[in-house]
């Protein structure tokens, strides 16, 4: 039943630019073969720590933007939040540094056939892959409303080009330092109703995705999510990034978010803590 994203390549890239944007780093990488096959929602896996690294596992980043034939060659852009030693190493890499990358990996956001009203919802740096998606959707004739939230203004990722792409953008911060004070879910329902949203795309921490899904489900709006599970390999061989997902056959299985995700139909994910009792082969 699995269908593996067959467009991945492993290759050597060069950092063209590494700039701090608020709490994040925006890194542009020149690399052959990844932008060529990338679709919004795909991710890349980067080796960290250099040649004598004591960090054997790859770090996973959603593709923010990619372009196969820019004036700088093929480029891939990511937004990095420093969360541990590996991401800290990456944010320290200067222009011209070499990176070993595998990608594009995983599922991509499904694009509706008709020009419908959609909302993109991003929590923190989870907003990164949504603006490229917005551009694709706009080109399809969709109306796109954006809702971006974070704890504080420095953690809001809403680039100027992205703002221009969407029909509207609403920002929320928990401390009130930018946009409306509060959480995404405080304004979400009104936004969905006002703009007659038919499809939601969201990306961010699991708690946020779950809160958004509760509202989407109540209003019967389709919801595509992009999850951020911790992964060791990103290519489907380690089985660490699993989530309980209901298949078309009705059976719940622990599926790999690197192969069957990161973009998952919110309807199919079982939104529970731990392994749900109905999961195939649950033995505890």
């Amino acid at each position, binding site marked *: 039943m*699995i269908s*593996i994203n*067959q467009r*991945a390549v*492993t290759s050597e890239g060069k950092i063209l630019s590494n700039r701090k944007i608020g709490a994040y780093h925006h890194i542009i990488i020149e690399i052959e073969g990844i932008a060529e096959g990338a679709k919004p929602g795909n991710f890349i896996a980067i*080796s960290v720590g250099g040649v004598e690294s*004591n*960090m*054997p*596992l*790859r770090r996973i980043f959603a593709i923010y933007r990619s372009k196969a034939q820019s004036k700088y060659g093929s480029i891939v852009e990511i937004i990095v939040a420093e969360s541990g030693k*590996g991401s800290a190493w990456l944010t320290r890499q200067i222009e011209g540094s070499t990176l*070993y990358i*595998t990608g594009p990996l995983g599922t991509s956001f499904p694009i509706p056939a008709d020009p419908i009203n959609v909302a993109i919802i991003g929590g923190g740096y989870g907003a990164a892959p949504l603006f490229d998606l917005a551009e694709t959707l706009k080109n399809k004739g969709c109306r796109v409303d954006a809702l971006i939230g974070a704890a504080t203004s420095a953690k809001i990722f809403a680039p100027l080009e992205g703002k221009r792409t969407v029909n509207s953008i609403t920002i929320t911060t928990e401390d009130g330092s930018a946009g409306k004070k509060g959480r995404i879910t405080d304004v979400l329902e009104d936004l969905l109703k006002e703009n007659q949203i038919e499809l939601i795309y969201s990306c961010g921490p699991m708690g946020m995705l779950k809160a958004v899904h509760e509202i989407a489900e109540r209003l019967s709006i389709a919801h595509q999510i992009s999850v951020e*599970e*911790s*992964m*060791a*390999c990103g*290519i*489907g*061989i*380690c*089985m*660490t*990034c*699993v*989530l309980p997902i209901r298949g078309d056959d009705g059976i719940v*299985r*622990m599926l790999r978010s690197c*192969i069957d995700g990161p973009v998952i139909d919110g309807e199919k994910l079982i939104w529970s803590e*731990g*392994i749900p009792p109905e*999961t*195939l*082969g*649950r*033995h*505890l």
Partner: protein
Amino acid sequence: MSFDYSTSIAGSVFSNPIFTASGCAASGRELAQFFSLKELGAIVTKSIMLKARSGRDTPRMAETPSGMLNSIGLQGPGIDKFIEEDLSWLISSGAKVVVSIAGESVDEYGALARRLRGIKGISAIEVNISCPNVENRGQVFACHPASARAVIESVRINLGGEYPIIAKLSPDVTDITLIAEEVINAGADGLALINTLLGMVINPKTLKPHLGGKTGGLSGPAIRPVAVRTIFQVHAKFPKIPILGMGGVSSGSDALELIAAGASAVSIGTASFGDPYATIKIGKELQELLISHNFPSLADAVGIAHDR
């Protein structure tokens, strides 16, 4: 005269000594998009159980200095679906296949072996009696000489001599040569050394064990010296028993250490998580190193550290 890179384990011949490690290549399909599986000595499949199994709670992984802990808990589709979907695909791809099996009881191992009889294209059976990710440490058959022996006897009887049996052992024992002796006497044709070491990470903020399953198996370069020592000890005592060595190999030079200690083939595990091409890269490096040491064949280097 050209260099002979082939290796053999109890009569099964492989074009080169670089295998995947069970649990580190899923069922092979995932790596096949990067290179032809025929380039490897063999694919060792993820240990399969009789019935479908969901595995342990998440988080299942923690990176540690030069290593990682995993607590997957033998997630898999069960033997029937494995044979129907994964194994048939692997065999048709032309890859050499070592099927790894894991059971909860002696009878279950026997039943797994029976299901695998008569399938053309299997090169060997790895009997994983040492997975640390089970709820009950008493289920780690490789920690007890009598239960290790019972499992291998059951597999041997049920296989009817069709394929070589490789017993995968745990380094988490006082004297691994005693366990090795039991499984050899029970009919194991070869040994897989070593499985992961049992470990734990505690989150310094929450002060709770980080892994959903609390404990996990430690792998990666951090455990390589343990693998080298274990292989050396076992090869010294049983020089005629072929060893599939594994434990933190991430370069040709690492692989050569295991070969020199007594391994006839080397499985690559955690290194593939960091680089999909790790097996191919290590295979090339090892071959170059063996040639630069003037060995006419891989076989001439196996266990060489015992003579120097």
